[in-house]
């Protein structure tokens, strides 16, 4: 009977040897893990391409080509009456200064012994169009210098600058009426003599936007001031209102349908597209309240409404992180509910609130779309405001809007400016986020 039981055929398998099914499962496992790695690598690759792009394309904006020239301020052209009266000198427009520049350039060419077929009038084309204005400003500030020969450093025109930076080549200027190969020969010769060179360009950081024809003179300074005033408005309004709203919702609000509506509302507002806030700003602040167009105050108000949800959400999280024992202890020694919150809970939550506020501000600083609708675009303000009131109410641009303005202009020289502007913007954002991270690391308490 016993032999009726068939011995099972012995399978040749070993734990040390993988069978086919295990192999496919292990292969699937490896593939799956590889997908994850590829995904992360893709994300990091994109980040590095982006950063590489920003740095390589933007760095050029911080270098600018300058031409050193000695200009003779001819009294016969600038002050025909010879009485050094400022009003008379002012009557000479920048047009009247151009001959001085061409004379100076021609003298330089002859002095250095450079051979060129160019007429003096054509030579001036390598200078920026802002050069004449630069001399005029100097003369108006120092009328007693008329008749002397003064050394100036002029910006080169954007094509010459692009030629030195490799953006413009002899092949690419075939149809360009702003520059000719002969002018580039002159540039080469001047460069060899050392009176034309690239150097650090401070006016990109401090200056204001320039017209379409003068990309070389455009700067970020004024729009930085505009952004600064907007951030001031956002900080002054969004921080107190956001903290007050969070305190109410977290500490005092009864659980009922009104509170529910407010909460759902806030989380939805956080996800409303920013451009909708721009429409709101246009309709309510400008059309209805008649606040001035393009003013940093209006921009600040719009961004306040936009960042409020962010600040409320992070403030509530940090209020929630304060343990109830603190509140109970305060109530136990006779404090009122209000005192327990303002004297004990709020100071303990302050680092978290500050972190959230800085992150909210950083978000607001980089926002562009709503600013376009309320008219905060480039080339509005040319001088820095002289008081806080004018800073808030006079038209200005903001950093991201200025970058957008440059990105829209067709001249590639403006792209370089836009990338350069992005570097400044990102420096601000990185600084703000670093401060937020440091605050969080140093002051965050785990209970």
């Amino acid at each position, binding site marked *: 009977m016993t032999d009726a039981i068939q011995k099972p055929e012995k399978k040749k398998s070993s734990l040390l040897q993988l069978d086919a099914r295990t192999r496919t*499962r*292990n292969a*699937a*496992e490896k*593939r*799956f*893990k590889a997908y*994850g790695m590829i*995904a*992360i690598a*893709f*994300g*990091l690759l*994109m*980040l590095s*391409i*982006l950063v590489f*792009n*920003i740095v390589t*394309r933007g760095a050029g904006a911080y270098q600018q080509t300058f031409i050193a020239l000695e200009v003779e301020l001819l009294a016969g052209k600038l002050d025909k009456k010879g009485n050094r009266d400022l009003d008379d000198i002012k009557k000479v427009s920048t047009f009247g200064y151009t001959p001085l520049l061409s004379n100076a350039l021609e003298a330089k060419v002859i002095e250095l012994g450079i051979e060129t077929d160019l007429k003096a009038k054509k030579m001036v084309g390598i200078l920026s169009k802002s050069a004449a204005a630069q001399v005029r400003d100097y003369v108006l500030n120092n009328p007693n210098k008329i008749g002397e020969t003064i050394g100036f450093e002029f910006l080169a025109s954007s094509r010459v600058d692009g030629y030195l930076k490799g953006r413009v080549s002899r092949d690419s200027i075939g149809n360009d009426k702003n520059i000719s190969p002969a002018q580039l020969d002159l540039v080469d010769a001047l460069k060899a003599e050392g009176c034309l060179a690239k150097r650090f360009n401070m006016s990109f950081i401090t200056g204001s936007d320039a017209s379409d024809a003068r990309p070389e003179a455009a700067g970020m300074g004024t729009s930085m001031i505009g952004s600064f005033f907007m951030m001031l408005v956002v900080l002054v309004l969004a921080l107190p*209102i956001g903290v*007050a*709203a969070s305190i*109410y*919702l977290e500490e005092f*609000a009864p659980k009922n349908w009104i509170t529910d509506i*407010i909460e*759902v*509302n806030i989380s*939805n507002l956080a*996800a*409303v*597209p920013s*451009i*909708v806030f*721009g*429409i*709101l700003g*246009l*309709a309510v602040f400008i059309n*209805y309240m*008649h606040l001035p167009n393009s003013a940093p105050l209006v921009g600040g108000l719009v961004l306040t*409404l936009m960042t*409020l949800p962010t600040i*409320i959400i992070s403030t509530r999280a940090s209020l929630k992180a304060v343990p109830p024992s603190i509140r109970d202890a305060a109530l136990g020694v006779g404090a*009122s509910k*209000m005192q327990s919150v303002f004297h004990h809970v709020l100071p303990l939550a302050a680092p978290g609130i500050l972190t959230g506020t800085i992150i909210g501000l*950083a978000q607001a600083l*980089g926002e*562009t*779309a709503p600013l376009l*609708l309320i008219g905060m*675009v480039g080339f509005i303000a040319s001088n820095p405001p002289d008081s806080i009131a004018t800073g808030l109410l006079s038209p200005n641009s903001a950093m991201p809007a200025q970058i*957008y303005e440059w*990105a*829209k202009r067709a001249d590639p020289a403006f792209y370089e400016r836009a*990338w350069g502007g*992005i570097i400044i*913007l990102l420096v601000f*954002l990185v600084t703000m986020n670093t401060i937020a991270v440091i605050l969080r690391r140093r002051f965050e308490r785990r209970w």
Partner: protein
Amino acid sequence: MSTTSLLVIAILILATLGYFLASKRAISTAGGDRRKLHSLPVYYGSNAAMFTAIPALGVLLIWLLAQPMLVERNVLSTIPDKLITEGSSIGLVMSDVRRVADGLEVVVSTGTLSQNETLKLDTEQTDIRALLAGVGAAVGSDVLPEMLEVAQNYRAQTKMGQLWMVLSIAPLALIGFALSVLAAKPTFRARNTVERGILALLVLAASLAILTTICIVFSMLFESINFFKLHPWTDFFFGGSWAPNFRGDSDLSILPLLWGTIYISIIALIVAVPVGLFAAIYLSEYAGPRVRAFAKPLLEILAGIPTIVYGLFALVTVGPALVRVFGRGEEGLLGVEWMSGATAVLTAGLVMGIMLIPFVSSLSDDIINAVPQSLRDGSLGLGATPSETIRQVVLPAALPGIVGAVLLAASRAIGETMIVVLGAGAIAKFSANPLEAMTTITTRIVSQLTGDTDFASPETLVAFALGLTLFVLTLGLNVIALYIVRKYREQYD
């Protein structure tokens, strides 16, 4: 200094005065013994400051918002028809009136003319346009006598309103001041009153969120209604083409824009969802603490970069790179001529996808981490490999949350502006070719509302209808997504 700022300063001084007087009075009525007071002296002071300043400032704020509207309504009815010329509208005339009136105020404040002199101005004798230009107020055309009359009327009414404002707010502050200082006695429960006041302020701050939403909805709703009065709603919702024409008679249909928006968003999601999801899976299930500490913050940098940077990236880097691959005929990498310009659906979609990667990955990361460890342990204990555990246990458990995250990402993509403004192009059309330029709802809002806008033409007002549609669309997605995420979280907490 203007009347309003003087009034505000006066109220604030009175409030400070009230603070000190009331706390002094509270101590002195208690015979100098603080223990006999119900509350700390600070509270008596704060109570006085609160009752002096807050009602007065509140009324002032409402007054400032309401007065221009009422004055304008009164003045609007007095504008003679003669002023409304061809190509102009009552709104434009009104803004001219306002400019003349404000300019005259500036003339007075700079001391060019006295108040009485400006009231006696005559268009025959003085060139008012030049006068106003002298103080920096530019008026579009010469000031007609009728215009001046209306402007003077406007000024008179504004002056009257300001007078009444001072006459009604100053007593309010004084009454509050007197009552609260007199009330500072030991038996008065100052702390309770002050705390009720603070609570009211907190409630006010919290309801600002609701107020914002109401403002958003109403501002867009009113202008949208104006738009639908000028333009048939059937064309807006069901028409087939978008061709704004500033001489009127434009085709303004949302459908081609909606198609562009959805197409770009779908491409963005095709990039962002797999990459973001796999990155989240790897970070939460496979990566060690060191890789996680290094890769997660780096990925999140992508989320902190402003969208204008992505826009420029699309326009200057990604677009030309795609043209090099798909365009330029023989010179291109593929030798085809499918793409002519840098702006295309694919350009904007790819870049938007990159922007959304960290958004999807950090949301999914949270959701995957919320799946209880016991589920994983059970699966691994039965002999499943980690990837089988993830695919068959963790992901199904996390699915509702991930769907919510994808919906939130979709709502982001639909509302994104700068990337599409710079990267997608401006041509509204129905096309399935991702290498063509198309346009989106947000792009058209920007282009219809920047530059000179005339709020009486359908070409401008259509932006509000587009905005309202966009708002409803994203709100719907958000509500569904938040509902799913919330419901799912309740399961495991």
